[in-house]
């Protein structure tokens, strides 16, 4: 590292860099590990000095230990960061308080004991026979049920929150800060005065944290959907009386929650009703296990001809499958080697893998994997005694999305599937969606797909080549039976997954109809 290169780093960290110089710095850091080390050392110095500059202003010599000194100083630092705003905020708060107090009497007299009022009714709005509250625009509403048979209604709560209701819907008006949606669709706007406004459903409470959101409840299944348009909400999940779990949900995200308060799906950006279109996917491989030749070739019956090679220390055992024959993975040595096609497989940025499985080993059963030269680069579909899991690693830490199941009955064939696209993974068993997610449950890393695996060199059915930093080869395996493994480029919809579950041995085609 020469002085000029150090100055490049300095200029970047001091936010004084120009576009052409930035290009030079990019090149330097891309190609020179010592320059990167220097960059980090200088950045650490910068942050350290910033920290010390603040700490020194507040550090007290009376503290007994260095740690206490630091803790206290950092606490002070946070106060310091807010105190600049403190005085101004206090003045504003006083002004607001005065205005609110002056207006309060007017408001109180306007609302009386009422909780809400009907601010707007569409021309086609009609209430059902059970509706017992006033029915005209401008009517004040007390506690009770508003049952809209059709049309639209806008309800303004005394807190300032507004609910646009689309019939048919039943909305319980409880307090100025709380409502209950029995069924139907509601669009909620809660201004600052109505922060913490609650829309409860049978399976959860949606607590506003300054936002706009839509919530709907299916009258028959009692499944709820929440879609956050602006701001943030907390979902307090679980039925009344049961232990609750809190799930924050921010703008752009949507969640589907079943009647028991379990999150079925969280999606990002595209909205919950925009499920993947089945037309996107095309069959890439279909390993039926019906034709395993003497030369150990595991035939792919699709047009792509991604034949695998059966690896086994002893003679592989073929058993009767859910459709034709199945391959029994009797010990750790059995796998289907797909390394010959790793370049094709590593291009999958959206994919579906589905297979039938029987008697999987309860500890850990590796169904499909694609990995690099070490365990730090991999994606894998695997089973545990109570879970179907899709896992990935892009660097030092492994993460996964898991779908909980009730176990694996001995001798029974199960259909399992995973889809992944645009950062969302979905897991299915027997055609039912088990779980979905855009981040892992362990440390919250974003979902990986085969295309994100760097230097992919291994691909298997029934095995993960887990190179342990490349220094010592080891692997994870599958013991159990596999049949009818299908791989698609693109994501199959739930209906398509349901189809291949109901039609063992038949791959899904875009023209397929679902009678």
């Amino acid at each position, binding site marked *: 590292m020469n002085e000029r290169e150090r100055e490049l780093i300095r200029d970047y*960290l*001091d936010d004084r860099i120009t576009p052409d110089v930035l290009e030079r710095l990019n090149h330097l*850091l891309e190609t020179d590990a010592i320059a990167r080390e220097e960059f*980090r*050392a200088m950045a650490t110095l910068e942050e350290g000095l910033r920290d010390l500059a603040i700490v020194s202003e507040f550090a007290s010599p009376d503290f007994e230990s260095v740690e206490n000194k630091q803790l206290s100083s950092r606490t002070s630092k946070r106060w310091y960061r807010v105190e600049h705003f403190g005085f101004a905020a206090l003045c504003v708060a006083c002004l607001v308080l005065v205005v609110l107090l002056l207006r309060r009497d007017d408001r109180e007299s306007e609302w009386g004991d009422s909780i809400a009022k009907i601010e707007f009714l569409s021309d086609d709005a009609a209430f059902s026979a059970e509706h017992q509250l006033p029915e005209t625009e401008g009517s004040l509403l007390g506690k009770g049920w508003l049952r809209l048979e059709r049309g639209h209604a806008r309800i303004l709560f005394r807190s300032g929150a507004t609910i646009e209701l689309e019939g048919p819907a039943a909305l319980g008006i409880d307090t100025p800060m709380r409502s209950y949606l029995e069924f139907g669709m509601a669009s909620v706007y809660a201004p600052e005065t109505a922060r913490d406004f609650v829309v409860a459903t049978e399976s959860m409470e949606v607590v506003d944290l300054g936002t706009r959101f839509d919530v709907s409840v299916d009258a028959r299944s009692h499944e709820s959907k929440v879609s956050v348009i602006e701001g943030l909400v907390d979902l307090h999940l679980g039925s009344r009386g049961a232990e609750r779990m809190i799930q924050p949900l921010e703008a752009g995200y949507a969640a589907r929650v079943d009647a028991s308060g379990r999150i079925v799906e969280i999606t990002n950006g595209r909205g919950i009703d925009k499920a993947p279109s089945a037309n996107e996917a095309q069959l890439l491989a279909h390993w039926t296990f019906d034709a395993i030749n003497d030369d150990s070739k595991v035939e792919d019956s699709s047009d792509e001809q991604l034949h695998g090679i059966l690896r086994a220390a002893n003679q592989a055992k073929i058993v009767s499958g859910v459709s034709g024959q199945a391959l029994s993975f009797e010990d750790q040595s059995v796998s289907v080697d797909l390394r010959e096609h790793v370049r094709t497989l590593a291009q999958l940025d959206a994919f579906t893998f589905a297979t039938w499985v029987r008697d999987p080993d309860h500890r850990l059963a590796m169904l499909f994997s694609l990995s690099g030269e070490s365990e730090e680069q991999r994606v894998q579909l695997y089973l545990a005694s109570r879970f179907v899991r899709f896992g990935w690693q892009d660097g030092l830490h492994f993460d996964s999305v898991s779908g909980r199941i009730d176990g694996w009955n001995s001798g029974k064939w199960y259909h399992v599937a995973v889809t992944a696209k645009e950062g969302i993974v979905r897991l299915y068993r027997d055609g039912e969606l088990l779980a979905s997610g855009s981040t892992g449950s362990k440390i919250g890393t974003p979902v990986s797909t085969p295309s994100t695996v760097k230097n992919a060199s291994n691909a298997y059915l029934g095995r993960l080549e887990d190179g342990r930093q490349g220094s010592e080869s080891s692997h994870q395996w599958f013991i159990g039976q596999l049949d009818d493994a299908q791989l698609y480029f693109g994501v199959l919809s739930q209906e398509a997954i349901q189809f291949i579950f109901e039609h063992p041995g038949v791959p899904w085609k875009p023209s397929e109809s679902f009678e």
Partner: protein
Amino acid sequence: MSNAPDSPTGHESFVRALARHERVIRAYIRGAGISRPEDVDEIVQEVSLIAWQKFSQLENVEEFPRWACVIARYRVLEFRRNRFRDRLVLNEKVFDLLLEEALNETESQNARLRQLERCLDQLPPVSQQLVKAAYEPGASIDELARSAGKKANALYQQLWRLRQLLRKCVDDAMGNETNLSKPSVSP
């Protein structure tokens, strides 16, 4: 020890861990290529929130700094993706490399930060004051130069020399850590 966020022990443990290791997390974020301190602050806030939500999943609180840095890694990449159009920032490949390599250095960065404090104490009082003044929140070189009756560029160069001295002091100390020799600073 319970790390459940809602338990008093969990809360106390989280606050203590965050206060103790916040500067390591900041250094990690800055060292990943986020140049502006206010951007570092923004990311640290997000990381703190996520770390709090996931704190119950952390099995050993001693692993907090590295664990929090893993969380920070993805927030940094997200921040870069969202802001690269309106900022002069390093390319994504460089970010990846810096983030990946820095994860193995959380321990040593912590040691560097501790050493920096000792090195700063060894500077002459006037130099210490200048450094601290330059790094205070909201400080600007132009204003400091005006109040010191100097040209901004001259002051910037003076600060750069002090930074290099501190850097050398820290490097020397880290290199000599095994024999516990005390580093010295003489501008």
